[in-house]
């Protein structure tokens, strides 16, 4: 056996298999292509007309900044991540391969981590391509601060990790891919919308809701080019919670 730690060796085959399956069907190419087209298009032409202070698009605003593009990420990813992860567990159950998977001599946590790594990698590939294509264009047109782009990408990686773990957990408790997608989009959509409820709730509750939303932890800092330790801790906790819940949901199937 290789010198690679056994725990990691148990994770990687599942990550590779998921990625290979994603790229062996047209779904991943179509999703990446659409994302790389739609996100920059929203950034260049529409702006961000959501919330108290709508932001103009690049042509209208005329500022060499990707902040509008990063503002779209939490909402778009709330739809895209469930679409990419819906089959991760629901399809295993439908096809019966989950039964075989549970007989393999690996910890359930390793399988969960492998699927998470694959979804995270795929999502980050998509986000990086979209951000880089927009950044290169803006950098060509004006004086772009590349540090804010890098900080935004790092923050996006945290955001994608949190979203992927939640969406994968919901795929693990769903019997069908469509149900997994709807549950994932609903849950992530609600998390995204929490800051919008702040206006209709009293102070304490509003503050708690705002602090619970990944939107706040991304838009408040990384999207503006600032990396904050408290945001990292938030996303690590959200990701860990999703992964543990996912592991328990799969392990529970041995008792079903």
């Amino acid at each position, binding site marked *: 056996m290789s010198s690679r730690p056994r725990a990691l060796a148990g994770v990687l085959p599942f990550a590779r298999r998921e990625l290979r399956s994603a790229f062996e069907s047209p779904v991943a190419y179509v999703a990446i292509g659409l994302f790389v087209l739609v996100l920059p298009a929203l950034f260049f032409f529409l702006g961000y007309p959501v919330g108290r202070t709508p932001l103009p698009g690049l042509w209208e605003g005329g500022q060499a900044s990707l902040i509008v593009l990063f503002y779209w990420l939490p909402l778009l990813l709330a739809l895209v991540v469930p679409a990419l992860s819906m089959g991760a567990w629901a399809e295993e159950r439908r*096809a019966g*391969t989950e039964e075989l998977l549970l007989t393999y001599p690996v910890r359930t946590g390793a399988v969960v981590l492998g699927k998470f790594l694959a979804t995270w990698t795929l999502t980050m590939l998509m986000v990086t391509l979209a951000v880089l294509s927009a950044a290169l264009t803006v950098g060509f047109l004006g004086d772009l601060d590349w540090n804010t782009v890098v900080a935004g990408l790092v923050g996006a990686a945290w955001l994608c990790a949190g979203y992927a773990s939640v969406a994968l957990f919901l795929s693990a408790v769903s019997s069908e891919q469509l149900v997994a997608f709807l549950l994932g989009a609903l849950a992530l959509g609600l998390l995204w919308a929490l800051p919008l409820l702040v206006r209709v709730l009293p102070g304490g509750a509003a503050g708690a809701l705002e602090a619970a939303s990944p939107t706040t932890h991304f838009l408040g800092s990384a999207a503006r080019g600032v990396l904050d330790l408290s945001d990292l801790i938030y996303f690590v906790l959200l990701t860990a919670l999703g992964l543990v819940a996912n592991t328990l949901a799969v392990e529970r199937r041995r008792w079903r």
Partner: protein
Amino acid sequence: MIVAEGLSKSFGPVHAVKGVSFTVARGELVGFLGPNGAGKSTTMKMLTGSLLPDGGRASIAGVPLDGRALGARAAVGYLPEHTPLYREMRVRPYLEFVGEVHGMGGRARRDALERVIASCDLEGYVGRRIHTLSKGYRQRVGLAQALCTDPDVLVLDEPTSGLDPAEIVRIRDLVVDLARSKTILLSTHVLPEVEEVCRRVLIIAGGELVADGPLHELAEDSADAIVVVVGSAETPAERIAGSLAACDGASAARGTFDGIRTRVHVTLERGADRHALAEALARAVHDAGWSLQELRHEVPTLERVFLERTRQLAATGGGSAK
């Protein structure tokens, strides 16, 4: 070696498996039979670790199977019912994935793959996507993944289900070949297949083990029957059967007339002497003035043993393995 001790499993109000115990010794090929819904697949899932029992214990190759028993799971190759596979994958990458999951690296994995690809006759198909293969070849890929790590124990859940006769023979030959070096628990609905390849059978019905033993012993314990062929076209078959059923030692008789002769199937009472009954039947035919053309003891087939054991359970509402 497979050991099941008092395995039980319920799904809500349904008691799928009720205290099943048996042992499959090293190098043994044992047939596992039962009607649909009898608890076969649930038992097999508990023996491979994909399902944990509510009660009892199981062990594979001496290692107890529980949720954390990776060693026991590594020792068993499993082919589940309906052969679930990642159908979008190609055959070789799929088998490589299975090898990797089992911790096989580099050369060991390559050698293992070549071995199973050859033994399962998959040489010309390794580049094909699994969903493009015929059912028989998908079944071979399922077997190949079970054999990938050369496990000591194989649990095969209906490996020939839905295959054409030629494929059934090929898979059966492969199982027989594997049985020379491995412990195999083989579930199937094809009873002649079990008669051909297994010396011992387990029969499960209603979640309980109702028979466990060598095939010939179970057959001997089964209700005996004597077949009497009478050459009498004038007497109705029902009347002949009625007369023979009245003989000492007979519990029932069923007659059929084929246009020339009447064939009567006479079942022995439990504990009755079959030779004494044969004499009584011959005498009854002679006394009635019919011509006796044939009188023979019917050797119970596995099908009869199976039906009898599973019917007994339904009739008594309980069962116990021999």
